């Protein structure tokens, strides 16, 4: 088993290096020159020239590339102009927030997606199946940033103030202003309340996709010969469905993890911007606008690594569930 893991890890390294290379050359093709940004009226040319040197911007590209990769591997991601702090520290502040949001969105999406998909497949052609299909298709076709705005509109603006409902969820930031004064329990409740809308905005679109996929996968498995064998053994319907069919139907869903993670991270860009959530997605977009290339490069590199790690985890999970893979 460990041999299998090692081989997968080795396979992932060229992938990550490849992505890093693409990002590096992409960013360096950029016409804009980052140092111009620092131009306050009084700054003389020598100072700019000096600035370019210590950021190493004057050396030819390939040298900068080798130095950058070298630095990258030793964990030195360079210096951020806009935050005037080492990029590594900046990332350390923002990365955990993105991970919390992505993890909770992933959990919600896969949990509800699998449950809804299974219900649809088990109750095929029923009213439940067709109505769920329409609702899910509706969410599947929705841009997550619009869903976020609609959730804010209803759940945090209109619900309590206009419609007088006891529902209210905060629409920005990770915690309320009076966070320090709350009790430990209160703190937790406050953090969760702030997490609800961003997670739903990210998760619902994904959940719809997973449910559709799960329904198809279950319907495919229920047609297999071994399900008929299970019935021929006299097993009750729920054992056939939840023991024999479900586990086989979950196999392709696990591969979806690898496929949907990039989709999820793309979503964080919007959700973090709308909900003022201090995460990596928002960090990168702002860095791009401000031409803060070290942050862009490091952030993109981190995202790519996280996707590769997620794929690796999905592969391992697949090997755990499907014995046919384990021994190769």
């Amino acid at each position: 088993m460990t041999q299998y893991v090692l081989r997968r890890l080795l396979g992932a390294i060229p992938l990550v290096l490849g992505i890093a290379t693409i990002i590096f050359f992409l960013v360096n093709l950029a016409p804009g020159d980052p140092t111009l940004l620092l131009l306050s009226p009084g700054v003389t040319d020598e100072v700019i020239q000096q600035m370019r040197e210590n950021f190493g911007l004057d050396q030819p590209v390939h040298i900068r590339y080798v130095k950058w990769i070298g630095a990258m591997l030793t964990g030195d991601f360079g210096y951020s102009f806009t935050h005037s702090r080492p990029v590594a520290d900046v990332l350390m502040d923002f990365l955990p927030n993105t991970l919390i949001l992505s993890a909770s969105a992933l959990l919600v999406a896969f949990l509800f997606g699998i449950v809804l998909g299974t219900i649809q497949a088990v109750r095929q052609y029923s009213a439940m199946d067709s109505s769920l299909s329409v609702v899910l298709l509706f969410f599947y076709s929705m841009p997550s940033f619009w869903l976020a705005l609609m959730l804010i509109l209803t759940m945090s603006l209109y619900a309590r103030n206009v419609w007088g409902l006891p529902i209210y969820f905060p629409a920005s930031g990770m915690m309320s202003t009076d966070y320090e004064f709350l009790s430990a329990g209160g703190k937790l409740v406050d953090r969760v309340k702030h997490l609800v809308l961003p997670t739903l905005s990210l998760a619902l679109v994904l959940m719809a996709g997973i449910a559709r996929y799960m329904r198809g996968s279950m319907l495919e498995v229920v047609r297999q010969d071994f399900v008929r064998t299970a019935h021929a053994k006299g097993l009750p319907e729920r054992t056939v469905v939840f023991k024999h069919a479900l586990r086989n139907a979950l196999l392709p869903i696990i591969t979806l993890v690898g496929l949907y993670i990039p989709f999820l991270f793309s979503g964080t860009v919007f959700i973090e911007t709308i909900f003022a959530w201090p995460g990596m997605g928002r960090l990168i977009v702002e860095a791009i606008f401000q031409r803060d290339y070290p942050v862009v490069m490091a952030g993109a590199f981190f995202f790519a690594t996280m996707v590769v790690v997620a794929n690796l985890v999905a592969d391992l999970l697949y090997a755990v569930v499907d014995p046919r893979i384990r021994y190769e």
Partner: protein
Amino acid sequence: MLESGVVSAKPHIDRSGPPLLSVRGLKKHFPIRKGTFGRVVGQVKAVDGVDFDLWPGETLGLVGESGCGKSTTGRAVLRLLEPTDGSVHFDGDDVRALDKEGLRKLRRRAQFVFQDPFGSLNPRMSVGAMLEEALKVHGLGGPNRRDRAVELLERVGLRSEHVDRYPHEFSGGQRQRLGIARALSVEPDFLVLDEPVSALDVSVQAQVVNLLEDLQRELGLTYLFIAHDLALVEHVSDRVSVMYLGRIVETAFSHDLYRDPRHPYTHALLSAVPRPDPAGREDRERVVLTGDVPSPSDPPPGCPFHPRCPNPRKDGRCSTVYPGAETAGDGHSAACHYPYFKV
């Protein structure tokens, strides 16, 4: 000069001249790759040294259980799969040395008929278009290729108005006829038939087999007939070769092979075939082999059949020395140190 004991109902085969097809030491190994860089860690020896000859107008049956390499042999002979070793001569030409143009000419004279009625026809092309395409690529059928296509359909027992129909509108038996019509479109002399009727019901099977026999008699075709149904192979073939784990273990005139099997595997194979004759079922001699066929990636040393061989005279030589296949006077050869001889 080989001469069968009993002249079967088939036309007399003249084996005095050179064979149309002669295969010597044919091998086809598939590499087993592992790991991310696809390191080769072993070889599946699907075909591991096969020799046979085929005279014009003759039908050679190639029979054996799944995994014995009979289909791979059929494909390697026509270079649908590039052989790993050995030589194949068709009408004197060295097939393995043919360049692109030479191979195209070979395709005109040697064709292939496939097994799966549902997979052997392009679902997106009408039957007429399929036949016309074959004629067009080889520049045949003259000005009006459509008439030639209709002629081919009628030749295999279908009707002219079927020409614009699509494969999914035909039954299994009719699709096999279409496969045969496509092979005939380039007017070949030699056909490799890879389990042509195995996927069909018995009654439909008989229709297609009769068609193949009529075509052979009329057009003087030579067949390499590959199948796992022993009774069918005996009915169709003049001579039969039995394959096991990538090699031919026995070759004989079909009549002699079934009366007097000399290789222990052929003997066991024949006794395992269920006979549609309940009267004799009690006193029939039964040889039931134990265990499964070994994996072709590491065949047992010496004679590949020795681990399962029920031959009473089996000894150390069997598990160390590979038995050569000497051909007895009556054209009957068996690759076994101690072949069975009818007393």
